[in-house]
């Protein structure tokens, strides 16, 4: 999460949403700053490629802004944002075809580039303490990314949300609008498939 603006009181998500619903763009901007890293990360877990992930994340916030008047406080803002993201991710092939997203549009690099950092754009958001651990993580990350592509979306979303994002079963159930039992069985099946895919790829 980016640093809050100077002098900003820490309002709850719900308070910011209410302000945004009344047209307060600064409030929505604060919401973006709260969730941009998380949304980008999950998008990246899903699509595995930096520019696509950033486009997907951008589109998620765009959709959230458009639909903010319809947001009911039944779910939390975070749950709702995940829902939008996952739905966009699942449908992105269709979405890309319609929007003709240009792959040549590039995103800025983050400020303060480290010359020893891993390849373009893939920087560790929470860097491991030593370079070897970091490199290992990056290598595994690449393999997991490829392996995840083999897995059906229902299971992929649960594995990402549970094992990578460490959300609770209850929140995942709310995000995906599935019963907790279904979430659990999809997690177990998804892990088994992922493990298999990683093994066949070695």
């Amino acid at each position: 999460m980016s640093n809050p603006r100077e002098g900003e009181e820490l309002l709850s998500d719900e308070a910011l949403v209410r302000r945004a619903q009344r047209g307060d763009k600064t409030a929505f901007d604060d919401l973006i700053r709260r969730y941009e890293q998380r949304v980008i990360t999950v998008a990246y877990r899903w699509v595995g490629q930096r520019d696509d992930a950033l486009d997907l994340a951008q589109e998620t916030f765009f959709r959230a802004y458009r639909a903010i008047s319809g947001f009911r406080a039944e779910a939390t803002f975070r749950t709702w944002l995940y829902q939008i993201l996952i739905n966009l991710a699942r449908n992105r092939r269709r979405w890309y075809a319609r929007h003709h997203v240009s792959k040549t549009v590039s995103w800025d690099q983050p400020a303060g580039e480290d010359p020893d950092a891993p390849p373009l754009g893939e920087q560790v958001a929470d860097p491991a303490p030593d370079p070897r651990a970091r490199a290992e993580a990056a290598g595994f990350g690449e393999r997991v990314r490829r392996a995840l592509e083999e897995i059906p979306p229902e299971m992929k979303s649960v594995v990402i949300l549970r094992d990578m994002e460490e959300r609770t079963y209850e929140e995942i159930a709310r995000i995906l609008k599935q019963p907790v039992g279904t979430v659990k069985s999809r997690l177990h099946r998804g892990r088994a498939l992922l493990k298999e895919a990683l093994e066949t790829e070695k």
Partner: protein
Amino acid sequence: MMTCRACRDQLSAYREGELADPLRKELDAHLAGCAECRAQLAELEQMIQQMKGLPSVVVPADFRSRVWQRIEKESGFQRLRRAILEPWYLKLPVEALATAAVILIVVQVVRVAGPEKMATAPPLQEATMVPQELAVMNQDRPTLARKMEPPAGASTRQEMKRAQSADYQADGEMEQAQLAASSAAVAADQAVLRTDIELDLFAPDLAQARKELADLISRMPEASGSFDEEKSCYFVSLPDEQMEAFLVNLFEVGSFEQTRASVPLPGPAPRALRVIRIHLLPLEP
């Protein structure tokens, strides 16, 4: 005796402590005597741990400004106009475009399924802008001359509809109440009923989509709808000048895929009501 295959199928649930006692004990016993399955469990554990520490993409410096650019770039009306006008206006003969009383709308979808819900409480604000004049277009370049202002008396009608629905608790009954309120209007129009526009609405949850559609219809003044169970489609009828507002809000409800549209004949209808037929279809995973 438990087979290795059966054991491995349960390893993830076992690891989470989610197995019922009898089954858990079977795995305990099997794992005690099977080095390979123990190794599998260890690999599973390692995989899960590694998934927690994956590198990610750091937020680019321009991310937020790009989001705002995307937001500012398209007002609701612009988005609608772009989605509606660009695909089809070139295909129509000039004569059909001439009359201001005719609405020609082809909705070509640019959407992805979304969980966005429509609120029942806040009345439609900037989205329900009712054009005072309809589009007059020429062949080369569509120009839209319209004044946009909130519909007069809309809040009263909305309040009335809400009051009618207020007595009903369940969603299904709510829909019935709304339909009952509007069925008179629909019946009166049977004689001139014809479908002007057909949309395919894809939704993961059809019951939910129906509910949201009913909700949207109830919040639009002078709109009425009826659901045909057999064909699984909604017939919505509403005045010419509200089509656009309806469609703007429809973008927030769900995912619309490529549509068919019949172009109405030029010339005003006796009462300028247009009909949209919305097919509810399941979204493939």
